[in-house]
């Protein structure tokens, strides 16, 4: 018998959601056959069978959030041995051992009402609506003393209750994230809501159901933590410029049919990526990062460009690897396939990590300009905004041109304002006069 446990498949994950079992009990599997889809905070991964054998018992149900280290499935490996007796229900030992209950939330049987409240609805969706953290007064008191907002703590106790152990784990995670350089109390301040609010969780209770509480978890929680980390470590400055897009517009119009013939939908984005990569090569500091631990500047001689992408689950940043090695067509194809994978939740871990610079393209939705938050630990992020005809002055005359704003947020520890403006000037010159892109061809 082989007990297959959920391992940390990247990014120091703590739990994964069982999206789908690709096998059922009784199936024969070969080693490395995909058997289950597990979704972590950002990616969906297919986990392969570790041994050849027969699926004996599936312990983690579809839709369950499973902590790292708990057993997903028991496989009778090829040298068949008699199966051990499995417990019929949660034993008392399991009640004491939180990690032994992979398919939480499970409510105790006699409490029919409680059971219904926390298991109703589609178990395939992980975000419960308006869930309030479950905890005894003692645990709430401890949370307040530790300056933890208990609503943010994932409960692993009976019926999904927050336990003392959950609080400690949550606190340890915070401390780890802050690299130990900040005191316990400061971490609490940075990552919980205001202490007053935490101390009076019912401050909004008198609103009689007009306030809905939704747990911050999964991708949203991940984004929140990431944003806090970025703005709390990187001094941001944002510089805005406007670009005249008529030439690029014309170029794209002319090339669209060529692209169509090759089965590629040609948008503006591949041109932007091309121009940005050219500018990054000329301004290495824009493609750098600061190593927070050693204080060194890391200049990267490769260009992995993240494309901030809006999905139903929130912001995801798929990364175009070695964007400087790709043609405009190849960029267009890569962007299309990454966007599709992001929207269907099929991104692999290596497709969302390792970026060196990020583009946030919200122009298709609207907005004049923005102050984007840098994708930590990168040095800068470029926001690309709406393209529209505007009245501008050329040679002393008001004329109508297709204009577009760009916003560059940069790490002011590494980059001065003048450098940043020279960088965007270079992007502007490449995009306003796209013929120049020919000169940079390799």
């Amino acid at each position, binding site marked *: 018998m082989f007990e297959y446990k959920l391992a940390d498949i990247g990014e120091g994950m703590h739990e994964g959601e069982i999206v789908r079992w690709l096998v059922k009990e009784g199936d024969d599997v070969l080693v490395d056959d995909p058997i289950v889809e597990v979704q972590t905070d950002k990616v969906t991964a297919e986990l392969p069978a570790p041994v050849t054998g027969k699926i004996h018992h599936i312990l983690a149900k579809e839709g369950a959030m499973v902590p790292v280290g708990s057993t997903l499935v028991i496989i009778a490996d090829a040298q068949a041995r008699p199966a051990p007796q499995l417990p019929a229900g949660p034993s008392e030992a399991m009640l004491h051992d939180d990690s032994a209950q992979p398919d939480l939330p499970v409510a105790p049987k006699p409490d029919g009402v409680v059971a219904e409240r926390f298991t109703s609805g589609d178990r395939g969706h992980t975000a419960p609506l308006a869930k309030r953290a479950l905890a005894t*007064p*003692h645990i709430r008191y401890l949370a307040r003393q530790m300056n933890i907002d208990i609503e943010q703590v994932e409960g692993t106790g009976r019926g999904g209750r927050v336990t003392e152990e959950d609080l400690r784990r949550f606190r340890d995670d915070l401390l780890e994230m802050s690299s130990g350089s900040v005191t316990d109390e400061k971490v609490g301040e940075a990552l919980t809501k205001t202490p007053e609010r935490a101390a009076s969780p019912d401050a909004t209770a008198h609103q009689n159901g007009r306030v809905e509480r939704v747990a911050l978890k999964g991708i949203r929680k991940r984004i929140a933590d990431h944003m806090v980390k970025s703005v709390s470590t990187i001094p941001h400055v944002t510089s805005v410029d406007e670009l005249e897009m008529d030439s690029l517009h014309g170029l794209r119009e002319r090339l669209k049919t060529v692209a169509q013939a090759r089965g590629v939908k040609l948008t503006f984005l591949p041109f932007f990526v091309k121009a940005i990569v050219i500018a990054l090569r000329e301004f290495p500091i824009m493609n750098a990062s600061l190593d927070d631990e050693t204080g060194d500047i890391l200049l990267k001689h490769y260009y992995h460009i993240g494309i901030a992408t809006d999905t139903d689950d929130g912001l995801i940043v798929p990364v175009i690897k070695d964007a400087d090695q790709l043609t405009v067509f190849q960029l267009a194809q890569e962007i299309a396939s990454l966007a599709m994978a992001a929207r269907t939740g099929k991104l692999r871990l290596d497709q969302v990590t390792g970026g060196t610079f990020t583009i946030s393209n919200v122009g298709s939705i609207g907005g004049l300009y923005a102050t984007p938050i840098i994708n930590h630990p990168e040095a800068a992020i470029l926001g690309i905004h709406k393209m529209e005809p505007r009245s501008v002055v050329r040679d002393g005359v008001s004329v109508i041109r297709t204009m577009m704003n760009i916003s560059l947020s940069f790490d002011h520890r590494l980059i001065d304002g003048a450098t940043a403006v020279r960088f965007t000037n270079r992007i502007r010159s490449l995009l306003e006069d796209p013929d120049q892109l020919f000169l940079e061809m390799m």
Partner: protein
Amino acid sequence: MSRNLNILQAISEAMDQKMEQDGRVVLLGEDIGTNGGVFRATDGLLEKFGEDRVFDTPLAESGIVGSAIGLALGGMIPVAEIQFLAFMYPALEQVLSHAARMRFRTRGEYSLPMVIRTPYGAGIRGPELHGESVEAFFVHTPGLKVVVPSTPYDAKGLLVSAIEDPDPVIFLEPTRTYRAFREEVPEALYRVPIGKAKVVQEGRDVSIFAWGSMLQLAISTARQLQVERGYSCEIVDLRSLAPLDRDTIVASVQKTGRALIVQEAHKTAGMASELISLLNDEALVYLKAPIKRVSGFDVPVPFFSVEDDFMPTQARVKQGIVDTMLF
């Protein structure tokens, strides 16, 4: 010097010694003289102290309590016996309207140094109205003290304190344990203070509160769970229901974080409810589980063998402790 006495003998000795020591102490009640009392608590006292100190009364509880009030106002220290707690009902007018209020009514000019002793609780296969545990009636009434010993030592010491107390004391004697066991009781006169609970057994995991005959049930169940599951139970004998030893009760739950109350009385609005309120006020943030109560049911106390189904059993107490531990 001390001897092994049961609760009944300890109570009898307390009255005997206080009567010897203080000429104002008198006894009254039904069949307490010639017959020595329905449970023989006053056996031999008529012979020893004579008709002026020990007198049989008619079968009229209102008259017994009313007479005791008059005696107390007149400078005596009456110790009245009511044969069973439910027989107090005909005397409630005297107890609630007069005994409890005399100090208040006279602006502190007169107090009533009197004791009403009465056996209480089920478990003796009695007929109707012989097994009540309505201690909450008296605890609810301002002006009364309510004391429940659960061991021979406490029975003697608490009754001495009750007789010396300047205010009316309802002295409840757990009938079932009258002769259930013996322990060392000093021969000398001693006092156990009213208003102090006793931590019978220290523990870490859960506090069990009990009084009267429920204490032995709590102790034996805790012992079993210690062996079977390794639970460390703290057992608190309340001893005094009014005034309540709030400090000891709260401190225990602050330590353990869990509480179970074993009460023989009906469930609704009993002492257990009061303890839960107290802990809610004073120890909420220490609670790791809801406070459990194991009690009788909200029905008249049944008689003969059906009372076994009414009273808390070891199985119910055990389940209560396990529930709170595994919450």
